[in-house]
């Protein structure tokens, strides 16, 4: 184990339902989503003095425009936390949410804080492009061949992984269908109910008859992405998007989404002081770099690294939230590390549930915590590939 002086415990974790891009949450600002999950995660630890929060660390992959201006600080103030509580926004693209958890845990493990909030928020509905509000690539990227992969779109990197790891189109489509089936079944069984803090969306719309602005309320309780009717036959009809003779389609790639998640971490002292029941102990986090053009394989490097660091065997991990950026890369990771398919994304993954970039890992941490609360996992992991070539993995142990 590392040189920590104390453990960091997760006492609460929650998330919004995940909305499809330009779907149910399209008009909900990312700072409002963040405020919503911060309020709700605090509500799950009644009695805890918010003045004790050392910092609020928020992951966001495109921290600009609506989610710029240090969205962490704005979100925590909108949540009603005291203005003595600081906040910072961090960015490690798709791993931002679990990176936030790791940073928050580290402050506690070092003895520098006793209460921390880690979160993630992202609206893809409000982003004008996948690359944020302004596209501007450094010309130096093209000066050396080994850097050109930085310019690759994520879909193209998935094509490269599919080719190099020989992941067939049929396998990718079957993986995607399974993701939808698992997610649909999980929703039907109410498996996400405990982790989701439902959202009441208030749309301000014109009432042309009266000339007034009308407020229409909608309650969003479930993830919007899963499609019960997804089938191999249906997906087989989709054309490749990123390469003329490729295999990656809109159907076997993650969905663009909106959402937020938050995790409340405390020290043992706080557990005792406020009589809080821990869900899990934070066991470690690792991140590793890989070639940008095959960024999808990032978890192949990160997973063994975190397991070694924590002294935990892969076979002992019972629940792995492996972000399904693309079926091709998820399958390449699973095959290379020989991950047990039964343990990977038991309730579906980003292909069905959606992938709100910097929020996803915080959201999936809430999923792992809920599984632990149901007694379905002793060790749980949240892992994902990261744009420009990285992989990250966070490890938790139920207590």
């Amino acid at each position, binding site marked *: 184990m590392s040189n920590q002086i104390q453990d960091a415990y997760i006492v609460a974790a929650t998330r919004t339902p995940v909305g499809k891009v330009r779907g149910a949450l399209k008009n909900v600002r990312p700072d409002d989503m963040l405020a919503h999950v911060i309020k709700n995660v605090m509500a799950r630890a009644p009695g805890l003095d918010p003045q004790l929060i050392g910092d609020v660390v928020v992951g966001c992959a495109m921290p600009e425009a609506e989610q710029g201006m240090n969205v962490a600080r704005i979100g925590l103030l909108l949540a009603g936390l005291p203005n003595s509580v600081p906040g910072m926004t961090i960015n490690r693209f798709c791993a931002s949410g679990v990176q936030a958890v790791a940073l928050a845990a580290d402050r506690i493990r070092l003895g520098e804080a006793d209460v921390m909030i880690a979160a993630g928020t992202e609206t893809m509905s409000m982003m004008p492009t996948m690359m944020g509000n*302004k*596209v*501007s*690539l*450094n*010309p130096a*990227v*093209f000066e050396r061949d080994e850097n*050109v992969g930085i*310019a*690759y*779109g994520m879909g*193209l990197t998935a*094509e490269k992984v599919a080719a190099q790891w020989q992941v067939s189109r049929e396998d990718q489509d079957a993986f995607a269908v399974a993701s939808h089936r698992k997610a649909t079944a999980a929703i039907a069984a109410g498996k996400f109910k405990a982790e989701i803090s439902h959202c009441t969306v208030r749309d301000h719309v014109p009432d042309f008859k009266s000339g007034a602005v009308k407020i229409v309320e909608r309650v969003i309780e479930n993830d919007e992405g899963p499609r019960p009717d997804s089938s191999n036959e249906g997906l087989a009809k989709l054309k490749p998007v*990123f*390469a*003329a*003779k*490729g295999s990656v389609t809109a159907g076997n790639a993650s969905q663009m989404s909106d959402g937020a998640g938050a995790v409340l971490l405390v020290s043992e002292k706080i557990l005792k002081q406020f009589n809080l029941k821990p869900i899990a102990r934070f066991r470690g986090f690792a991140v590793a770099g890989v070639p940008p053009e095959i960024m999808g394989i990032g978890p192949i490097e990160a997973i063994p690294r975190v397991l070694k660091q924590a002294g935990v065997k892969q076979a002992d991990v019972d629940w792995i939230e492996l972000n399904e950026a693309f079926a091709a890369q998820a399958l390449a990771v699973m095959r290379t590390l020989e991950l047990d398919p039964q343990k990977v994304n038991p309730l579906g993954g980003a292909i069905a549930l959606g992938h709100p970039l910097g929020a996803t890992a915080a959201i999936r941490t809430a999923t792992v915590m809920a599984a632990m609360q149901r007694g379905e996992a002793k060790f749980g992991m949240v892992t994902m590939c990261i744009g420009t070539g990285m992989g990250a993995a966070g490890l938790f142990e139920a207590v």
Partner: protein
Amino acid sequence: MFESDAVRMWIAPNDADIAVLSFKSKANTLGPDVLEGIIEAVARAERDYKGLVIWQAKPPFSAGANLAALAPALQAKDFAGLEKAVARFQQMSQTLKYAQVPVVAAVSGMALGGGCEVVMHSSRAVAALESYIGLVEAGVGLIPAGGGCKEFALRAAEAAARTAGGDVFPFLQPVFQTVAMANVSKSALEARELGFLRESDAVVFHAGELLHVARQTARALAESGWRPKLPPRAIKVAGRNGIASLEMMLVNMKEGGMISAHDYRVAKGAASALCGGEVETGTPVNEDWLLAVERHEFVELLKTEKTQSRIAHMLETGKPLRN
């Protein structure tokens, strides 16, 4: 009143204040003699008439630059001579743009390549609904170099100047795709969406009314005190960051097998011309600078074997070569 082997400038008895220029070349292509005819016609119109309409008795408006006229110099590898020819085309475009009388392009049918550049540099265009306008140079491995890229860079800079951030790139991105993919409008209305026609250009639904509307437009402009715009002196360009961002799109298309290596090379030339070359983003330049960049990129492409093959194939078969 003026006629050469390439052009005819004439007036109608009832509209004697507005001169009309028509081309005599096959498919109204633009060879050196047509360019000289246009320059001469503008000079005569400035001296003797209220305005000039460029109109063809039968479509197309113009199938573009006469590639066959370039062939001998290309075979002789006389690239200095070719650059001079391109510079002369650009002079013609600028002559249209800064004419002291309004020049109205009356477009019907195809206005491709150099023909499109004539439209873009006219004071106004009046286009029949069935107009097929586009910068198709990429099809023969070239980029628009008769001022087409320059004009798009300028229009993007003008549009950006009206926004809060003043960022040129969002206005260039769609134009780049149009140029790099050699997109041709399916109608005059689409030509406006693609940026070949301006909001101020008129669309005429009955092609038979084209000449009348064009003359009336020229007359109205003249009688409302026509003066050409002053040449812009500080056109902010997307520069090297813009080129890199466009190149990012190209890398993905090439690696995805959607375009060839030479398509990539050609499109990168277009990116450079549209972004004002490898200068810092936001650098103010003038039209001469932009014209020099597009001229340079054009000639560099002419030097490549694959562009030469594309041109030869087009001249032999009339069809584009994908190489």
